[in-house]
């Protein structure tokens, strides 16, 4: 089972890196957003209620990571949908491997890709003057939350692909990514959000994932945001995994 999962994860990663048109949006769009947000709204740190930060880039770094991880989930879904459309998925199902490995392989790949995304944005932030106040333990905390969340978003993307079976349908949820982001505290402190976004943000796991990754950047590692971030990411990962396995079973039943 482990060998199959690793092989399928490796295949998914090789395919992802061979198709820069899939990878580019994960890194380039959030990078551009990060640049525009920090350049255009850097004075918002002067607003009453804004937490103490060295600069707006420090605050926005976690937002870019969260956005990138969410887009990673969409990309994982599109990749699987293309395999369903192309018939590879059916050949995989017909082969003598545990079927759950098909989903797990994709999730492991999503986790590894998430690590790449986290490292990329950390290096980018450091290069442009941000600092990780939590140091190496802080970076490891960001990595743990990010990888768990990345796997969760990958699982949700996989679920969508298994249900929709069409790459264009999965691609159609792209605007939804922004809806979920805008009703969280990823881009702005919860106290500064307008109503009803502030209320929704309180119940949105994305808020806790973003805040969990932000805390080690703007202050030292503290238990509460870290645990909340890990719990929210774990919840998304567990829920996503359960949904994707259920979707896989449904797809196999229909086949």
């Amino acid at each position, binding site marked *: 089972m482990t060998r199959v999962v690793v092989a399928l994860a490796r295949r998914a990663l090789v395919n992802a890196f061979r198709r820069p048109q899939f990878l580019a949006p994960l890194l380039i769009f959030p990078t551009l957003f990060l640049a525009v947000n920090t350049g*255009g709204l850097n004075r918002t740190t002067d607003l009453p209620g804004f937490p103490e930060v060295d600069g707006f880039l420090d605050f926005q770094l976690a937002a870019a990571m969260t956005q990138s991880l969410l887009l990673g989930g969409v990309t994982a879904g599109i990749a699987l949908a293309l395999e369903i459309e192309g018939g590879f998925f059916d050949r995989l199902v017909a082969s003598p491997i545990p079927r759950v490995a098909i989903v797990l392989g994709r999730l492991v790949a999503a986790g590894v890709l998430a690590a790449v995304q986290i490292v990329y944005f950390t290096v980018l932030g450091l290069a442009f003057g941000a600092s990780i106040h939590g140091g190496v333990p802080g970076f490891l905390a960001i990595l743990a939350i990010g990888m768990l969340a990345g796997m969760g978003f990958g699982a949700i993307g996989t679920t969508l692909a298994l249900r929709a079976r069409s790459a264009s349908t999965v691609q159609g949820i792209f605007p939804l990514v922004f809806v979920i982001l*805008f009703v969280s505290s990823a881009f702005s402190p919860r106290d500064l959000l307008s109503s009803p976004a502030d209320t929704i943000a309180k119940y949105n796991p994305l808020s806790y994932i973003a805040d969990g990754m932000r805390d080690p950047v703007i202050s030292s590692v503290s238990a509460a945001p870290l645990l909340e971030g890990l719990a929210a990411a774990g919840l998304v990962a567990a829920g996503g995994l359960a949904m994707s396995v259920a979707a896989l079973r449904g797809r196999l039943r229909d086949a």
Partner: protein
Amino acid sequence: MNADLLVVRALVLRALNEITRVPGAAIPGVLAPTIFMVGLASVFGKAADLPGFTSDDFLTFIVPVGLLQGAGFTGAATGVNLARDIEQGWFDRLLLCPAPRAALLTGIIASAGLRAMLPATFLFAVAMALGVDFPGLIGLLVAVPLVMGFACLMACWGVILALRFRSQQAAPLMQMGNFVAVLFSTSYAPKELLAGWLEVFATLNPVTLVLEGIRQGFVGDVTWGDTWPAFLALALLLAAFGGLAVRGLRRYGV
């Protein structure tokens, strides 16, 4: 009617047909700019409280950004559709017909201008429903051609890339052009409040003039001083990118 105009008309109608025949494909392009506008306003709305902000309502300030983004998405979609036609061989058949290539290009690009009215109308209606002040008839008369012209500009960009790469895989590049052109301007805040590097970028970016031309009616009075630079900048951009698109089409298949 002149034969060339008939070709342009046929291609525009074909592009408009896609909206009615595949409405699902148009929905993300219509919804995304509105979601972006409303979302940004809810996240960064308090930025309007900053000293020096030229509007007391952030949503009003970014309505023109949404309008241009919607136009940009439409323009990029035109490029993606052309790439699809190239992949499927339909465009090669089109080139065999006895019509000047300039007419074919005009039809494809003009369709983007008309299609851009769909996201623009939806976004404008949502903005009005959320309490944005009506920009006045003159404000609208200035904004509409600028939005349509910007869609044509981004369609030129999409066409250039489609003719160069001949694949729908160039779609992210088409979107990126729109993203950079619109957002690396005074999209989020007046120039005085931007970070130094972005202020320089926004000053050099001609789309800033187009954006300010649309914005003037929403945040204040329409003035000739803000209007002519917007139209001039757009006309020059259209001439430059239109010229590149014509060159790309001439080289296509040679």
